[in-house]
C-alpha cells in the first residue's frame, strides 16, 4: 500500500519527510487552510515521490497554473468539483506543452457513518483515484477517523486513498482494516494532522515509527490495476460466476477446463481463421460513412458485421463454438434463439460440420420470425417451441438449459451471447474479439492510429459489444458506449434497458444486472427488436456499467427505427433494428468534429423488413 503525507509547508521539513520516501507529498493550495502552501517553490524531490496539489473549488485556470509552476503530478480535489470539472481539468492539462505525463486526479469524498456510493459513478471515468476522508467541520484535516465499515459496501473497483485521522494510535485498526474485505481496493493511506508539531510541520520521528509499524503493509505495493476481463474465478468484478444446478456441473466444468487450451492450439486457430476468411467472408470492411459523418459533424466508421455470411456477427461465435464442440467430442448441438439470428447461425455451422442441431425458440417468436424458422429448417435443424413462461427468448434459454441437463454427455450448448455461466461469457467474447482485432489495423490504415475516440455497440446479451470493445477495454483513451433498448421509454413499463432498470441478481447461470420484481422473479423486457429483448446483460457489461468504464445509453423504439431509415437513405445500408439502436445515439449525444467513432454494424436489416414496412407504412 502507498503512503501519502499531506499538508507540507516548510522547506526543511519537506526535505526531511521526503527522505522517508513516501509515495505522495501533498501541498495544500487553499488560503483558508492553516497549511496553505504559499512559498515560492517546492524543493527538488526524488522522482519516486508524486507532488500532489490539494485544491478546494479552485478556478481551473489557477489549478493549471500551479500544476505547471510546481510540476505537480497529481491534484486532489476537496470541494464540490463536478465530473465535468474533472474532465475539463484533465483535458486542459493534456493540452499543455509541458505535459509529459498524465495528471492523476484524486477526488475526495467525506464520510461519517454512511455514504451514498452512487454519487461516485459519474466520476469513475475521469478520476484516477477516490479519497475517502472524515466528514467534519473542515474540508479535510478534522483529526478523527470515519466508520471504515462503510467501505464494506464500496461498489467500485477504483483504487482509493484512506484518509482522516490516521495516526500512531490507529496502527492496530489499520492492520485489521487491511485484512478485511473493505480494503480490497484501498490503494494508499493518507496522513496529516496526527503527525504534526504545529499545522504544516510534521514530526519526523512519529512518521518513522508509523512507517516501521506498518512496514509489512506499506512495503507491499499491491498493484490495483483495473481489469475488465474475466478473472481466474470467472468473475468480472462482482459479476459472473457459474450459478448452475449440480446436474450441469460436469458439462460446464469440462468446458471451463478446456476452452482456453483448445483456443490456444495452433491447429484450432488455423481452422477458425480459415473458416472466418473463406466461409464467413472476413475481414469485414471498416467503412467510413461520409454522408452520415457530415450530417453529425464527426467521423463515423461502420464495422460491417452485416456483410458476414448469415448477415450478422453471430456467426463468429457459432464457428468458434462448433469447432470447440468437435474438439470435445460432442455430436449433438443445442441452441436458443430469439429473433432467429443465432438459431440460423447455429443451424448453418451444424450443416457445415454435419452435426445434429436442435434450436429452442419461444412459441411467440416462432410466430413473428417465420422466415428465420424456415431458414433453420432448410439448414436441417429441428426447431422446438418453448411453451413455458412467457414463451420468448428467456424461456427458450431455459428450455435449452433443461435439454442440456437431460443430455449431459454427447451435447454441446452453443449460447448465442456473452451470457450464461462461466466460461461462456469469456469464450463468446474471445470468439467475437476478432471484431476489434480487425478494427485496430483497419483504423491504422485509414486514420493512421489504432485507437478511435469511441467504440459503440448495441447490447442484447452483449456479444457484438464485447467483441467490439475487447481490444480497447484497457485503452483509457478509447471511450466505450453501450446502447440498450429503451422500448417505449425507460419509465413506460415496456423497456429492455437493463443497466437502468435492472438489479444485481442471477439469471441463466450468472450473477449480473437483470430486470426483476422486488421478490427476485425475472420480468419480461420489451423492445421492438427481438435481439435486444433480453432481461439481463452479460456480466462483462454489468461490470463496465458499475465501474463507469462504459457510458450506457438507452434508445427508444421510435428513435431506433428513424436511425435505421436514415442510414438506409444516407449510406445505402439497411441495418438490423438491433443495430439501429446503436446508430441512434448520434441524434442524442454530441461528438467533437475530429472524434473518430467506430460503430459496430452488427447485422443487416433483411430479417426486419416486415417490421420496417409496418412501422413506416412503406
Amino acid at each position, binding site marked *: 500500500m502507498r503512503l501519502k503525507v499531506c499538508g507540507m509547508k516548510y522547506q526543511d521539513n519537506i526535505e526531511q519527510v521526503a527522505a522517508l520516501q513516501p509515495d505522495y507529498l501533498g501541498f495544500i493550495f487553499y488560503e483558508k487552510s492553516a497549511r496553505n502552501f504559499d512559498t515560492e517553490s517546492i524543493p527538488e524531490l526524488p522522482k519516486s515521490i508524486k507532488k500532489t496539489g490539494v485544491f478546494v473549488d479552485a478556478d481551473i485556470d489557477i489549478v493549471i497554473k500551479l500544476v505547471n509552476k510546481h510540476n505537480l503530478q497529481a491534484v486532489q480535489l476537496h470541494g464540490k468539483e463536478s465530473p465535468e470539472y474533472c474532465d475539463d481539468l484533465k483535458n486542459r492539462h493534456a493540452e499543455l506543452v509541458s505535459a509529459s505525463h498524465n495528471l492523476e486526479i484524486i477526488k475526495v469524498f467525506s464520510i461519517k457513518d454512511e455514504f451514498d456510493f452512487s454519487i461516485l459513478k459519474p466520476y469513475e471515468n475521469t478520476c484516477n483515484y477516490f479519497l475517502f476522508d472524515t466528514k467534519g467541520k473542515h474540508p479535510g484535516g478534522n483529526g478523527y477517523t470515519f466508520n471504515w465499515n462503510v467501505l464494506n459496501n464500496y461498489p467500485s473497483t477504483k483504487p482509493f486513498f484512506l484518509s482522516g485521522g490516521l495516526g500512531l494510535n490507529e496502527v492496530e485498526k489499520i492492520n485489521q482494516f487491511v485484512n478485511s474485505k473493505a480494503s480490497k481496493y484501498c490503494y494508499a493511506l493518507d496522513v496529516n494532522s496526527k503527525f504534526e508539531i504545529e499545522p504544516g510541520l510534521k514530526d519526523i520521528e512519529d512518521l518513522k515509527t508509523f512507517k516501521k509499524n506498518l512496514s509489512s503493509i506499506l512495503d507491499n505495493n499491491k498493484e490495483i490495476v483495473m481489469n475488465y476481463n474475466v478473472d481466474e474465478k470467472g468473475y468480472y468484478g462482482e459479476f459472473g460466476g457459474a450459478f448452475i444446478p*449440480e446436474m450441469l456441473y*460436469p458439462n460446464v466444468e469440462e468446458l471451463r477446463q478446456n476452452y482456453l487450451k483448445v483456443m490456444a492450439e495452433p491447429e484450432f486457430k488455423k481452422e477458425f481463421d480459415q473458416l472466418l476468411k473463406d466461409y464467413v467472408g472476413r475481414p469485414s470492411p471498416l467503412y467510413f460513412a461520409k454522408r452520415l459523418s457530415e450530417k453529425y459533424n464527426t467521423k463515423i466508421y461502420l464495422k460491417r458485421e452485416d456483410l458476414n455470411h448469415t448477415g450478422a456477427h453471430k456467426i463468429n461465435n457459432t464457428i468458434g463454438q462448433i469447432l470447440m464442440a468437435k474438439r470435445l467430442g460432442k455430436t449433438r448441438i443445442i441452441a436458443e434463439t430469439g429473433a432467429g439470428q443465432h438459431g440460423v447461425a447455429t443451424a448453418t455451422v451444424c450443416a457445415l460440420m454435419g452435426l445434429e442441431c436442435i434450436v429452442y425458440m419461444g412459441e411467440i417468436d416462432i410466430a413473428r420470425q417465420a422466415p428465420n424458422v424456415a431458414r433453420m429448417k432448410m439448414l436441417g435443424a429441428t426447431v422446438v417451441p418453448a411453451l413455458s*413462461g412467457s414463451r420468448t427468448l428467456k424461456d427458450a434459454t431455459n428450455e435449452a438449459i433443461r435439454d442440456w*441437463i437431460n443430455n449431459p454427455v454427447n451435447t454441446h450448448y452453443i449460447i448465442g451471447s456473452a451470457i450464461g455461466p462461466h466460461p461462456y461469457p469469456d469464450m463468446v467474447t474471445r470468439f467475437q474479439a476478432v471484431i476489434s482485432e480487425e478494427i485496430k489495423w483497419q483504423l491504422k490504415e485509414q486514420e493512421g492510429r489504432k485507437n478511435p475516440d469511441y467504440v459503440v455497440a448495441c447490447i442484447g446479451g452483449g456479444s457484438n459489444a464485447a467483441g467490439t470493445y475487447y481490444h480497447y477495454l484497457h485503452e483509457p483513451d478509447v471511450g466505450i458506449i453501450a446502447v440498450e433498448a429503451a422500448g417505449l421509454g425507460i419509465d413506460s413499463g415496456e423497456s429492455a434497458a437493463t443497466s437502468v432498470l435492472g438489479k444485481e441478481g442471477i439469471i441463466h447461470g450468472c450473477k449480473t444486472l437483470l430486470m426483476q420484481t422486488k*421478490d*427476485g422473479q425475472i420480468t419480461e423486457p420489451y423492445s421492438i427488436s427481438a435481439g435486444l429483448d433480453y432481461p439481463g446483460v452479460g456480466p462483462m457489461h454489468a461490470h463496465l456499467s458499475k465501474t463507469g468504464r462504459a457510458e450506457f445509453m438507452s434508445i427508444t423504439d421510435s428513435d431506433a427505427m428513424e436511425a435505421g431509415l436514415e442510414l438506409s437513405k444516407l449510406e445505402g445500408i439497411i441495418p438490423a433494428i438491433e443495430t439501429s439502436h446503436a446508430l441512434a445515439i448520434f441524434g442524442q449525444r454530441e461528438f467533437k468534429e475530429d472524434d473518430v467513432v467506430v460503430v459496430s454494424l452488427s447485422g443487416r436489416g433483411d430479417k426486419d423488413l416486415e417490421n420496417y414496412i409496418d412501422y413506416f407504412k412503406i
Partner: protein
Amino acid sequence: MNRINQKLQENKKLLSIYFTAGYPNINDTVSIIQNLEKNGVDMIEIGLPFSDPLADGPTIQDSSTKALKNGMTTEVLFDQLKDIRKTVNIPLIIMGYFNPMFQYGVEAFCKKCQELGIDGLIIPDLPVDVYHQEYQAIFEKYGLINVFLITPQTSDERIRYIDSISNGFIYMVSSASTTGAQSGFGEEQTAYFERIAKMNLKNQQIIGFGISNNETFTQATQYAKGAIIGSAFVKHMTKHGADGTGTFVKTIQN
C-alpha cells in the same frame, strides 16, 4: 439437534414430499403441510416458486407459474408459515432458486427461516463452492442445514467434497434429468445407487427425481435412507386438491 438430523437417526426409510407453495391455491400451504404430517410423511420440501426454474420439468414449471400468478411471494410464504411450528413437528425444508433468496438478502432469509422453525434449505443453483466461501457461516449461524445435489455424472472426488461440506443428507438425483422425467429405474440407476452406497459417505443419502409410486420408492430406498417425491405429488394436487394428500401418501406406502 436439528430436526433433520433427528429424523435421519430414526430406524426407518424416510418419505419426503415436495410441493409448490401457492399451488393449487394460494392458501393451501398450511393445510398441505398438516395433511402430509398427519398421513405419516417424514419430511417436507416447501417449494418457493421461481419464474425460471431451470432444473424442473413441465409439472413443477407449471405449478410454479400458477403459484406466482396466485400471488405467492417470499413474504407471503413466510407469513403463511408464521405459526407452523404450533402444529407441525416433522422437518421442514424450503426448496427454491437462489435469486429470490438473494433479493430478500441471504442473511435476512436465513434468520427468518430460523424464526419460523425451518430446518434446512435446498437451492439447486447455489453451487457448493460459492456456498462454502460466502454463505456457510451464515447458514450455520441460524442453524440451517443446506442440502446439496449429486448426479450420476458427479465425480467421486466431487462427491467427497460435497460430503465434507454437508451436515444433513445428500440429495441424490436419480438420473441425468430435470424433475418429473421418467418412470421406473433401469440398470444404469441401480449401478449408480450401488456405487454411492459403497462410498460410505459421512452423510446419508435421500434419492429424488423420478420417484412417483410405491415401486420406485421401494427401489430407491433399498439403497438410500429415503426418497423424495415431487412432480407426482404436484400432479395429484392438480387433480384432487389439498385434501387429496392422504390418498396419495397411502399409494406410496402400501
